[in-house]
């Protein structure tokens, strides 16, 4: 997995990753920790489903159950799905636009370590008296009144991870706007790069609202403020607004990159350019724009009144239009093509019907009156899993199989990949399709037990069995990953790719491109394959390449904030916690001062050295 061929000790590799500012290694860190959190959240899901296998089951206690659903949701959305996409974007997006790194490599390192420490902080709550238990939506006043430190870990963990997320979002925007290679105009950018840009814009506008909400929650829980305390004139519905102003765009943050991935995978394996490229780009923007107008459709039953409900219903349904455009464009991309069924393509093919169902139930939920029945039932659970698994997770898995040879210089086994797909796909539909009906039959979500003799038994049993199939699929993926390590290096451009990332040698050189690549149109590599010699033309003669130095400071700054976070939590138990705040803050700010005062001009790779390397 390393980019150099010589053997290195484990310690050196770890130190290398701790200090890295290289977008590819940062990407790998995102994938590694996102993957770990994904496995944890998946395990939590299996425990939840086991509890719900039979009526009035007591596999886990009521309190533990609420902790499990909270951690499953929070881990999956904030610490698994989003970081996994960030890992893919980090690795692939600069290669797709012909850049040598992100605009701010140091900030990238800081972003990833803030995410890792934030995630570890939140998950450490299991060992410090109990995890958060008010659901991933963390509604006040239940969350404010929740005893113990669980919610405090939620607040501070997500605050740290969220800060990292915003930084990385800014970094992606700056990179795409400023660092595209010669000839890479906006309308020649691959769709994955486009969705990275739009996703980052969503993050930039959505996450600050959540940052504020978390601060208010922190003040209420730690410093006796009363933003959400009704008795003192606060208002708990404000939390719901702030949460969903982030929470709804969050859905698009999770699904747009998957759209981007499928817009890469489908043309590649259909040997045809993306149908309606311009429409796809504008549909992406439209979805993102409308995504900010619809947050209150999560709150139809709150009692906002018919006018607000009707307006938000209109906005919500409008999103179906650009999404429909995308579905038809993908279908028409395949139409007339020459479709090769590989594992990534299988995920794309599984995605289309699955996501269409998720989108259709989305329209149903958008109908205010119908939502009075659907809201907070298993119908909603089914809907958002169809969107998040059928969209985002299928996208991540497609991308992992698709870009694995690029990222790790190994091919994943197609045989195991297809087995994994069929297990995952059938398990997924078995788990969630029946849940639409469970919801309509009167099963609210977040129920620790369902009662006997309410005709909910069979549906829940089927659902649980389906979830085990999905668990099995993930085990197959892990076996695939481990065994691939022992295979030989992957061939260059194994899928007959169309975009720039496939033009670099394997493994990707740490400077990415020896020559600055020249883009001559959409799908630049494909153009060169059809009209040229299959090699990307250099835009300029060989120069020295300027590279940034690695730094341990991002790791140390994040560590400082984490120590301070523990201080904030434990100052509630006595003054000794405050010492931790001072130590942590002093440490983090000290590192920032060092970073600000110390000049680091990076280094140059001399032209002569580059000449020795492959093209």
């Amino acid at each position, binding site marked *: 997995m390393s980019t150099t061929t010589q053997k290195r000790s484990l310690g050196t590799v770890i130190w290398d990753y701790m200090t890295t500012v290289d977008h590819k290694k940062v990407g790998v860190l995102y994938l590694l920790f996102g993957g770990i959190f994904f496995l944890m959240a998946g395990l939590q899901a299996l425990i939840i489903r086991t509890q719900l296998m039979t009526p009035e089951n007591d596999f886990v206690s*009521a309190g533990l159950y609420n902790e499990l659903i909270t951690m499953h949701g929070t881990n999956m959305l904030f610490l698994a799905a989003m970081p996994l996409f960030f890992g893919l974007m980090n690795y692939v997006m600069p290669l797709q636009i012909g850049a040598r790194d992100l605009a701010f490599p140091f900030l990238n390192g800081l972003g990833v370590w803030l995410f890792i420490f934030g995630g570890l902080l939140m998950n450490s709550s299991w060992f410090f008296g109990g995890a958060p238990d*008010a659901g991933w939506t963390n509604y006040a006043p*239940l969350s404010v009144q929740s005893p113990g430190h669980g919610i405090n870990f939620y607040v501070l963990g997500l605050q740290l991870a969220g800060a990292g997320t915003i930084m990385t979002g800014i970094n992606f925007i700056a990179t795409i706007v400023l660092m595209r290679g010669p000839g890479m105009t906006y309308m020649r950018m691959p769709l994955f790069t486009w969705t990275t840009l739009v996703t980052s814009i969503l993050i930039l506008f959505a996450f600050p609202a959540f940052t504020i909400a978390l601060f208010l929650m922190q003040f209420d829980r730690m410093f006796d403020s009363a933003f959400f305390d009704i008795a003192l004139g606060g208002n708990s519905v404000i939390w719901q607004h702030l949460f969903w102003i982030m929470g709804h765009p969050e859905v698009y943050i999770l699904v747009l990159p998957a759209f981007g991935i499928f817009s890469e995978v489908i043309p590649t394996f259909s040997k045809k350019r993306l149908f309606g490229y311009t429409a796809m780009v504008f549909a992406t923007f439209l979805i993102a724009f409308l995504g900010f107008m619809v947050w209150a459709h999560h709150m139809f*039953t709150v009692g906002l009144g018919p006018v607000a409900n009707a307006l938000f*219903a209109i906005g919500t349904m409008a999103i179906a239009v650009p999404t429909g455009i995308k579905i038809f464009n993908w279908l028409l991309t395949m139409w007339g093509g020459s479709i090769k069924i590989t594992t990534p393509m299988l995920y794309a093919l599984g995605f289309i019907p699955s996501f269409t169902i998720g989108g259709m139930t989305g329209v149903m939920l958008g109908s205010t009156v119908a939502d009075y*029945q659907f809201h*907070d039932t298993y119908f909603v659970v089914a809907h958002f899993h169809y969107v998040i698994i059928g969209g985002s997770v299928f996208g991540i898995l497609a991308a992992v199989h698709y870009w694995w040879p690029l990222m790790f210089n190994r091919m994943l086994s197609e045989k195991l990949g297809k087995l994994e797909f069929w297990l995952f796909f059938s398990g997924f539909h078995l788990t969630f399709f029946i849940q639409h009906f469970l919801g309509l039959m009167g099963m609210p979500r977040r129920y620790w037990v369902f009662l006997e003799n309410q005709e*909910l038994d069979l549906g829940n049993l089927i659902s649980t069995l389906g979830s085990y199939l999905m668990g099995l699929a993930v085990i197959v993926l892990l076996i695939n990953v481990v065994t691939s390590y022992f295979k030989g290096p992957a061939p260059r451009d194994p899928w007959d790719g169309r975009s720039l990332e496939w033009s670099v040698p394997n493994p990707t050189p740490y400077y990415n491109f020896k020559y600055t690549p020249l883009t001559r149109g959409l799908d630049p590599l494909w153009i060169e394959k059809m009209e040229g010699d299959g090699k990307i033309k250099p835009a300029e003669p060989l120069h020295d390449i300027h590279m940034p130095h690695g730094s341990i400071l991002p790791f140390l700054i994040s560590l400082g904030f984490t120590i301070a976070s523990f201080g904030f939590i434990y100052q509630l138990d006595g003054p000794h916690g405050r010492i931790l705040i001072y130590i942590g803050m002093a440490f983090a700010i000290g590192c920032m001062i060092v970073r600000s005062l110390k000049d680091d001009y990076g280094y140059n790779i001399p032209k002569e050295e580059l000449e020795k390397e492959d093209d």
Partner: protein
Amino acid sequence: MKRWMGKFKALMLFTFLAILLAGCGKENLTSLNPKGYGADITLDLILYITFIMIGVFVVVMVIYTIVLIRYREKKGQENEIPVQVEGNTKLEIVWTVIPIILVIIILVPTIYFTFDLADTSEASSSINIDVTGNQYWWHFEYQDEEVATSQDLYIPTGEKVYLNMISSDVIHSFWVPSISGKMDVNPENVNTMFIEAYEEGVYWGKCAELCGPSHSLMDFKVIAVSPEEYEQWITDMQNVDPEEVPDDAVAQEGQDLFQNNCMGCHALGSAPSGVGPNLTNFGDRTHFVGYLEPTKENLVKWITDPESIKPGNLMTGTYDVTEEEADKIAEYLMQLQPSEITPESAGGLID
């Protein structure tokens, strides 16, 4: 509007779908077999949208299947390059405009019924009930009649009953799937909704907003009886004498124990909402604690060890009674049956 929906319903597939779904789930719990105004309208709307959506899905899947059959790479074709099509403006306009039309078709009845269900203009001339959500039980107070009860909500059939809902602690959500959709019960403001049951019956109610460990055990019932029976029930409840001494000696002891240990939180008669549920007609409850079979054994267990029955409840540890004493209290409580109108009058629970 309603009539227009009725016409639509006449469509074969639509009716077929409705009949097929009505068998899904437990009667008086499932939203697919509506027994009240809100649930009825909502199911019509759900089926209407589903119908359109299935149409869209079929179109997508037909294209999808054709693509997969016709355009798979065949042996010997590996090196052929398909025509690189940029797009097709006409087609793209078609699949932009058609969804817009479909969305509008869905939105019109949606918006109409959104306003219809939010219309509370008749509230002042109807029955008004104050609903209070508590961790993990429901309190019901009949404003004008000065009657209070908990857990089992009695309403007359065939008329709109207005519920003015507020929470005493965290957010709950009031949901009786077979009668109506849900509405949140917030701690900061009163939310008003109406329910109307078409026929007599005991309907299951559920809390639909996560409210703590026992969220899933916060069940309640709506008992819809005929208007005459409802009047009778109100009168009976108004005439309750909370001090009335029971006939047998065990229950009398139970009453003393109850008054010494439990009355700090619980109330009898029309006394205002206390910390704990109003127990005026406790002996008539369909379930104890919201979900347990109404047997003395269950009640004793609840009194002696509440935590094992409803984790996180507020009753645990607030009093000290022996199992023997609990047995006497249970004997007393089970005799609290002030009215001839009971869940049986509505046909009882469907098992």
